[in-house]
C-alpha cells in the first residue's frame, strides 16, 4: 500500500536545520517535515558548548574576525564569501533565537554571556576571544527545543518516525518529491512536492568511536548520491579530540574554553608545544593529531596506551556546576571518574562531517564545477557542504551553520515554490524503494547486518581515522567492496510491518556504506594533508594542486567518478596555519 501526499515543500529531517527551514517555509507554503525521530530527539540536542556570533557583549569582536577564524580554521578550503555571509548573519540569528525564548546564560547586566572556544580569536589570531553564546553545556539542546517550540507555535506539520528512502526527480532533473517509509506501519508514502530540503545530519556511525547518535547514518547524502547528485569534500571528517575514552561521548570544547587542559600520560600539558599561542584552544584537528603524536611517542595512557586526559579539576567547582554540568555527569556515569578531582580519560572521536551535499549560500543543491542548480532541491546543516567549514570546522560553527543556512534554504525554497508548478510524476515512483525493501525482507538466509556494520565501524576507525595513508585507504576501499558484496546478500529476522527497526537499521547500513565509499574515495585522491584530512604519506598542505573541492559521483555502474571545483577565494590568502 502506498499513500500519496501533495505539498509545496517537504523537509527531510527534524533537527536544527530542518526545523529552522520549516519555520521559514510553513508561513509561506504548504509544508511537511518528515523525521525518523521525534524531532526533539535529533542530534542537534547533543551539541554542548555554544554558538558563536560576534555580539561583542563581553569584549570587542567583529564578524570579520569571526570570518577570518572560520577560513583559517578550515585550512583555507572554506568558500570565503559563504563564511563572510555566515559570520555577518550570525549576529541577527542569535538575537532571533533569544527573542524566540532561548535561555542563554547571561552577563551581570542581563545580556547574552559569551565564552572562549577553540580557534576563535581576536584580531586575526592575537589571542582567544569570548565569542560563543551558550546555555550551560546544553546549547544544542536549547536550540533544538526553541526551534521545536516555534514549530509548535506555528502548527508546523510533522510526520514523525518516517524514513526517507528515495528522491523523486523528473526527466529534466527537477525535484518532484520523495519516497518515505512509515515505521509504525511499514507503508510507503510518496510525498509529492515542488521543493525538497534535506536536513538529515551527519554519518559518524561509520566509525567505531563516535560522538554521533545511532541515527546518524547519512540518509540524505546517500539518497541524493544514488540519484546523480555529487558529494563534496567527503574526506573532510572531523575527529573531536575530547571524546570520553572507549565510548566517544563528547566532552565539550567548552571545558577547555573555561580553562580545562589536555594532558598526556606524564601529566604534561603538551599543547604548549604544538600551539604555543592558544595552546589547548587550538582547533580540533590540531589537538586530535597532537594526541595521536603523543600516543605514537609512547605518552598515551590507559590499558592500550591510546588515551589522553582532560583535566578540569583545577577549575572552580561552581564554574563546573553552572557551566559544565552535563559533561561532568557523563564522566561520572560512564567512566566512574570524578572530574572535579581527577583528569578524565579521553580519545579522539568521530564527530562532524564537513563534507556533504554541495549547495550554494541559499541552500540550493549545485552540481559540477560550474555549480548548476538542481531546481527545487535544497540541503542544509551537517548533511550539506556550503562550504563554510572547509577542511576543519571550528567549534560552535555547526549550530550557527544550521540556523543561518536552515533559514536561507527555507527562504529560497519558499520563493521557488511560489514561482513553480507541481511537477507531474509517473506512477510507481516508489518502485525502486519498494524493490529494495522487498529484497531484504524476502531473503531468508544471508549475511548479518550487525556483523557488516561492526566490520565497517572497526575498519574505518582503524584505516580512515585521524591518520591516513595510501596504503590504509586502499585497504579500506578493498574492504568496502567486500562489505558491499555481503550487504547485497543481507537477511534480517524481523519480517513484520509494524516498527520494523531491523529493516530500517539495515537500510541505514546501506546509506553508511555509500557515505564510506565516497569518504574513502575522496581521502585516497587528495594526496595532501589539510585540516582534518591527514595523510602521513603526504604530510604537508599542497595549495598548488589541492586548493580545490572534491566531488564524488556515483556512476550508474556503481563505480565512483571524482571531479573537482575551485575554492571560492576572498580577502584571506592562504598562509601557514599556526596558533
Amino acid at each position, binding site marked *: 500500500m502506498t499513500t500519496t501526499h501533495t505539498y509545496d515543500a517537504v523537509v527531510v529531517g527534524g533537527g536544527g536545520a530542518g526545523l529552522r527551514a520549516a519555520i521559514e517555509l510553513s508561513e509561506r507554503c504548504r509544508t511537511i517535515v518528515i523525521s525518523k525521530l521525534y524531532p526533539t530527539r535529533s542530534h542537534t*540536542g547533543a551539541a554542548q558548548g555554544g554558538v558563536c556570533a560576534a555580539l561583542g557583549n563581553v569584549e570587542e569582536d567583529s564578524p570579520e574576525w569571526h570570518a577570518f577564524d572560520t577560513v583559517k580554521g578550515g585550512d583555507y578550503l572554506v568558500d570565503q564569501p559563504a563564511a563572510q555571509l555566515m559570520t555577518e548573519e550570525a549576529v541577527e540569528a542569535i538575537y532571533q533565537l533569544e527573542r524566540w525564548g532561548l535561555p542563554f546564560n547571561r552577563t551581570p547586566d542581563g545580556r*547574552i554571556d559569551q565564552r572562549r572556544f577553540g580557534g576563535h580569536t581576536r584580531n586575526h589570531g592575537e589571542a582567544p576571544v569570548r565569542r560563543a553564546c551558550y546555555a550551560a553545556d546544553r546549547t544544542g539542546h536549547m536550540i533544538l527545543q526553541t526551534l521545536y517550540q516555534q514549530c509548535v507555535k506555528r502548527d508546523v506539520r510533522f510526520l514523525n518516525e518516517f524514513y526517507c528512502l528515495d528522491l523523486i526527480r523528473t526527466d529534466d532533473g527537477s525535484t518532484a518529491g520523495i519516497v518515505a517509509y512509515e515505521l509504525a506501519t511499514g507503508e510507503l508514502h510518496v510525498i509529492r512536492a515542488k521543493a525538497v530540503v534535506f536536513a538529515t545530519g551527519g554519518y559518524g556511525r561509520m566509525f567505531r568511536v563516535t560522538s554521533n547518535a545511532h541515527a546518524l547514518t547519512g540518509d540524505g547524502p546517500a539518497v541524493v548520491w544514488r540519484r546523480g547528485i555529487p558529494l563534496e569534500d567527503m574526506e573532510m571528517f572531523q575527529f573531536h579530540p575530547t571524546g570520553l575514552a572507549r565510548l566517544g561521548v563528547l566532552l565539550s570544547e567548552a571545558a577547555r574554553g573555561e580553562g580545562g587542559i589536555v594532558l598526556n600520560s606524564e601529566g604534561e600539558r603538551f599543547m604548549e608545544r604544538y600551539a604555543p599561542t592558544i595552546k589547548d584552544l587550538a582547533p580540533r584537528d590540531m589537538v586530535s593529531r597532537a594526541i595521536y603524536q603523543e600516543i605514537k611517542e609512547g605518552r598515551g595512557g590507559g590499558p592500550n596506551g591510546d588515551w589522553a586526559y582532560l583535566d578540569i579539576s583545577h577549575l572552580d567547582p561552581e564554574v563546573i556546576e553552572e557551566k559544565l554540568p552535563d559533561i561532568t555527569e557523563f564522566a561520572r556515569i560512564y567512566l566512574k571518574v570524578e572530574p572535579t578531582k581527577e583528569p578524565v580519560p579521553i580519545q579522539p572521536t568521530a564527530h562532524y562531517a564537513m563534507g556533504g551535499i554541495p549547495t550554494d549560500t541559499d541552500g540550493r543543491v549545485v552540481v559540477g564545477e560550474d555549480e548548476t542548480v538542481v531546481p527545487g532541491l535544497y540541503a542544509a546543516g551537517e548533511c550539506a557542504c556550503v562550504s563554510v567549514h572547509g577542511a576543519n570546522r571550528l567549534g560552535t560553527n555547526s549550530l550557527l551553520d544550521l540556523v543561518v543556512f536552515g533559514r536561507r534554504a527555507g527562504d529560497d525554497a519558499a520563493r521557488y515554490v511560489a514561482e513553480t508548478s507541481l511537477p507531474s510524476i509517473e506512477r510507481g515512483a516508489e518502485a525502486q524503494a519498494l524493490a529494495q525493501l522487498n529484497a531484504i525482507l524476502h531473503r531468508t538466509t544471508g549475511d548479518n547486518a550487525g556483523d557488516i556494520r561492526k566490520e565497517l565501524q572497526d575498519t574505518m576507525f582503524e584505516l580512515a581515522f585521524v591518520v591516513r595513508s595510501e596504503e590504509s585507504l586502499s585497504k579500506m576501499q578493498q574492504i568496502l567492496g567486500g562489505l558491499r558484496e555481503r550487504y547485497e546478500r543481507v537477511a534480517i529476522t524481523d519480517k513484520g510491518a509494524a516498527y520494523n*527497526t531491523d529493516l530500517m537499521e539495515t537500510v541505514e547500513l546501506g546509506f553508511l556504506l555509500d557515505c564510506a565509499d565516497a569518504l574513502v574515495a575522496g581521502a585516497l585522491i587528495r594526496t595532501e594533508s589539510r585540516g582534518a584530512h591527514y595523510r602521513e604519506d603526504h604530510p604537508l598542505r599542497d595549495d598548488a594542486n589541492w586548493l580545490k573541492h572534491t566531488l564524488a559521483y556515483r556512476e550508474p555502474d556503481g563505480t565512483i567518478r571524482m571531479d573537482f571545483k575551485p575554492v571560492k577565494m576572498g580577502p584571506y590568502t592562504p598562509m601557514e596555519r599556526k596558533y
Partner: protein
Amino acid sequence: MATAAQVLDASERPVQVHGQIQLAVRVRRFNPEISDESWWDEWTVRCDPLERLVEVLHQIKWHHDGTLTFRRSCAHGICGSDAMLINGRNQLACKVLAQDVAPRATIEPIRGLAVLKDLVVDMDPFMDDYRSILPYLINDSGEPDKERRQSPEDRHRYDDTTKCILCAACTTSCPVFWGDGDYVGPAAIVNAHRFIFDSRDEAGRERMKILSEKTGVFRCRTTFNCTDACPRGIEVTKAIQEVKRAILFERF
C-alpha cells in the same frame, strides 16, 4: 560504538573472561502482528561491567533476535528516546550500566501509554499534553533590536526545567497519570514552569488557567515518583509545587 557484550546461547556455558560480568536480560515482549498477549524473553549476556544497557540490547538485537524493538538514538542521555521500566524504575537504558543492574535486568515498556511493539509506546498523547500548555515564549510587547535583557537571577529561576528532554520517564512513573490519562502529567507541567517563571514571557496566566483545570496540576499527589524518575535530575515535584503555589497565590 564497539561493545564487549556477547550474547550467550541458553546452552552455552558461561566462560569466565577477565573483568567481564554476566547479565540476564529479561524483556517483556509484545507484537500485535503475532499475538494480543505479551510474553517474556530472556537472554544471558556477558559484558563489560560499564557497558550501557542500551548497547546490551543492541547486541541482542544485532546478533540474536532482530525482532527485539526499542527506540534509541544518542545513547548518552540527551535525546530521551530510550526511557524504559528497568528493574521497576523508569530510566534511560543508555544511562544504566550493566553493573548497576547485574545479575538481572528486567525491562518493560514505560507505563500509561499504549504499547505498540516490545518497548515502543505511543508517544502521541504525551506530546499532545506537552503541546496543550503553550510550550513557546509568548511576548507581544514588541521586539528589541538586540536581545531581551534578563538578569542571571531571573535566568536561574527556570534553569532546572529547561533541562527537560521529553523522554516521558516522569509522566509514565506517575500513579495519577496511570489512573487517569486525562491528567496532563509532570512533563507538561515542567515545560509550563519553564515559561511561567521566565521573566520574558507574558502568558503565564493563560498557562496557569489551563493547569488549574481538573486535568491540571492539582491532580498531583506529591508522590515524588517523577523526581526520582527524571534522568536529567530535574526537581519535577518541586516545579509542580511552584506552579501550584503560583496559581493559588497568583504569584509568579
